[in-house]
């Protein structure tokens, strides 16, 4: 197995672990969005690498573009939720998100 494969697989795993650890250890909504983004970068990396390995770069690019669109929508909607929660509760604690109603 070549060094590049090991490096990419290891980096992807580390990014996923970092994202999951952030998700578990924080209650701040902005940080939670950042954690999701970090984990999604790992998925983007793995998809691009799979396309590169199989010689199907165009297909993997189509998937990567789809993931990027999803990342944007997730970030925008979650940031909107965070702002709404802040206006209602005065902080960004996700444990108070259930107070948003109406």
């Amino acid at each position, binding site marked *: 197995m070549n060094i590049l494969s090991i490096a990419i697989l290891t980096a992807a795993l580390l990014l996923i*672990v970092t994202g999951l650890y952030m998700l578990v250890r924080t209650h701040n909504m902005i*940080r939670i969005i950042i954690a999701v983004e970090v984990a999604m970068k790992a998925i983007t990396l793995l998809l691009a690498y799979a396309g590169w390995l199989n010689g199907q770069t165009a*297909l993997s690019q189509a998937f990567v573009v789809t993931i*990027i669109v999803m990342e944007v929508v997730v970030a925008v909607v979650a940031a909107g939720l*965070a702002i709404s929660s802040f206006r209602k509760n005065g902080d960004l604690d996700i444990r108070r998100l259930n107070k948003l109603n109406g």
Partner: protein
Amino acid sequence: MTTFVIVLCLVLMVGFALSAAMLRSMLKSAVSLAAMSAALAVILYMMGAVWAALFELSVCVGLITVVFISAISLTTPDRRDEAHTKDHRQRFAALPFILIAAGVALIAVLVSTGFYLPQPGEEAVAEAAFNQVLWQTRQADILGQILILLAGAFAVVVLFKEGRKI
């Protein structure tokens, strides 16, 4: 040369991800995330995914960072948030050690089991152009993307809708 640049960018990506997690300032975390996206864009470019790199650079480094900075500036932390961030470094102190352990464990497993992946281009097939794949093969994805974008726009409108005064 390609291998060196990709490995360098991978190291940068993990480093910026770590700093995004561990930095106390959310603004600096957002900038670290942008830097991580920039490193990923370089990797995508080196792998030949030029269009994906372009999207990553313009959307993730540009647009998402603007969204984060706007959200951070609109949610200026109060005293309670400052109290939450006081133990932030302590909370994430274990993360570097967890990452080192996970990395060493994965490398050990990969090396000991002789896990094999083909070299890039080893199993190359006749490849279509990106626009051809996107517009002809993955039409359903484009429809899904449009629907996701519309749903996102609708969600933002609903979230920022002014309540009716009674």
